[in-house]
């Protein structure tokens, strides 16, 4: 019972025991690192039109281009180096996933915990509204909102948040409702401390573990949702191509044997989502009291 290690130190100690999760974390870290460093390590800025030449278009992996460097993953229809394009695309995909995930987390957690604290009719109304939203597929909602708002980074973030905050709200509400009537909350209220402080300093931190799990899952799903929307043409503008748009660009050439234009961005997307999910699964297992040793 008497354990001197802080909860955080214990958490990382347990996390290290899972090889798959550590592998996932390393891969995620590596991809974030590569994405951040993309302008420094790529041989070509894929969106500098001056550096592109159509003579290099649709060349297979390993082709040595006119600029003198090898295109390890081939080139696309405009003659872009695909490896460079993928690293730039990762940048945007990860950025979108993190920003949408973070805003969704803050918004959803606030709505969910506040509803759980207030209880009664407010809670019933808000949560039924969220249930209603959850009964629609997220992709449908995001698609409609993205189409209505038009193209653009922030419009897409808004669409992703609108589609995903409900998952955070649902989870936060469940966790917070369980904490709401525990003695330490009543003790804080009977001090008395103001409701806002009790919600954000006592209830929310204790409702956080399940939210962290949902956050990792939702970041992965925000990335794939964004890719889907971009693939369908309602996502990011062509000036900021994410992985989804790269896949879409290569799609017409799939059947003509130039598989690499679509496949490699797809592989990068799969690795990223898989790695995030590996980390998320381990966090979920560790925070699930029923699986605790």
């Amino acid at each position, binding site marked *: *019972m*008497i*354990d*001197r290690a*802080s*909860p955080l130190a214990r958490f990382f100690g347990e996390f290290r025991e899972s090889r798959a999760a550590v592998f996932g974390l390393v891969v995620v870290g590596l991809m974030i690192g590569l994405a951040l460093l993309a302008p420094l390590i790529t041989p070509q800025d894929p969106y500098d039109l001056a550096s592109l030449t159509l003579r290099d278009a649709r060349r297979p992996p390993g082709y040595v281009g006119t600029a003198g460097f090898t295109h390890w993953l081939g080139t696309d229809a405009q003659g872009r180096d695909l490896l460079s394009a993928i690293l730039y695309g990762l940048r945007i995909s990860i950025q979108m996933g993190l920003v949408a995930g973070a805003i969704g987390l803050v918004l959803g957690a606030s709505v969910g915990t506040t509803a759980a604290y207030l209880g009664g009719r407010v809670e019933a109304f808000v949560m039924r509204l969220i249930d209603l939203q959850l009964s629609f597929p997220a992709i449908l909602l995001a698609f409609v909102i993205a189409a209505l708002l038009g193209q653009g980074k922030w419009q897409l973030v808004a669409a992703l948040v609108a589609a995903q905050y409900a998952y955070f709200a649902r989870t936060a509400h469940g966790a917070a409702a369980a904490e709401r009537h*525990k*003695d*330490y909350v*009543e*003790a*804080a*209220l*009977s*001090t*008395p*401390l*103001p409701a806002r*402080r009790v919600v954000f*300093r*006592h209830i929310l*931190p*204790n409702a956080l573990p399940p939210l962290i799990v949902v956050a990792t899952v939702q970041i992965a799903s925000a990335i794939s949702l964004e890719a889907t929307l971009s693939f369908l043409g309602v996502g990011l503008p062509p000036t900021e191509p994410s992985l989804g748009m790269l896949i879409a660009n290569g799609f017409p050439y799939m059947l003509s044997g130039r598989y690499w234009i679509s496949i490699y961005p797809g592989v990068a997307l799969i690795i990223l989502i898989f790695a995030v999910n590996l980390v998320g699964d381990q966090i979920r297992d560790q925070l699930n009291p029923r699986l605790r040793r």
Partner: protein
Amino acid sequence: MTDGFVTASGVSRHFTPSLPLGERIVAAFGGAVERRSVRAVDQVDLSLRKGEALGLVGESGCGKTTLGRMIAGILPPSDGALAIAGEPVMTCGASPRKTTTRVQMVFQDPFASLDPRMRIGDALAEGPIHHGLVSKAGAVAYVRDWLGQVGLEPDYVSRYPHQFSGGQRQRVAIARALAMRPDVLVCDEPVASLDVSIQAQIINLFLKLRRELDLTLLFISHDLGVVRHLCDRVAIMYLGRIVEEGPTHEVYADPRHPYTQALLDSVPKLVLEEGAEVRFKPIQGELPSPLAPPPGCHFHLRCPFAAERCAVERPTLRPVATGRRAACHFAKTDLNIITGSSSSPAVIASGAKQSS
């Protein structure tokens, strides 16, 4: 009754369970639906003098915790008024809030009453800083001082609750309540979940703190021994009502209500006199459902002295001796008060007690 420091007058608390969906729909369309509510606390009058320790005793489910929570300002009463030094504990209106810091509470389970994600230094400082009892800069010294007062190492400020044992946690919880500098401390079975050896330490801590800080104590317990040790006065509760009240030693020596007698007799005793029989009698029967309490005196179904009148008329809590009250039609009275028909059956009650 209104001259006390802490006063509860006519306080009730009802809990109405929410209806099943089907019945709610029927009700929404104007159908007649029976709504039954639990009267957890039913028209209780209680008062504490300043500096007094009152023990509130009763079986599980008798409403003692609910009454304690109302006095501590956690639950608003459905009816009646609660005041400390004439000041109401909670605001009125649709969503009552607690306004006073003069009453604080110590909870039964020290594993649930401390925020597991907050260092105890922060947990103790939070309230006093918010209410301006101490500045942010002085908070650490203030908290260390209180940890010392309850017999903990002042260096524990940066620890989390999971790093403490049950007894230490209860000390932390007591320090948190006292750091608000309350006049009144409501303790809801504060030792019930602790080991016996630790219980004694915590009881002694209460005795010491009460003396040093001039605290008024409402001590809720089902343990008659603990109450005898700690409290000046005792109030016995049964199914939401107070059935007997008076100075602890008098009530224990000469209980006037049959329920109090039965409760005292049901305590197993370790020391037996030479040749004495084992005087350990459980109370007959089951506690009736609080959803449908019996009419008249709530105890009449289990009472060995019950008469017809008990099933019809609710006995009032009336004076039976100086500073003592009991809610029984037939309670023995030392006062020269003419109370109608209560004179002859009172002999039954007292006679039965002597023979037991």
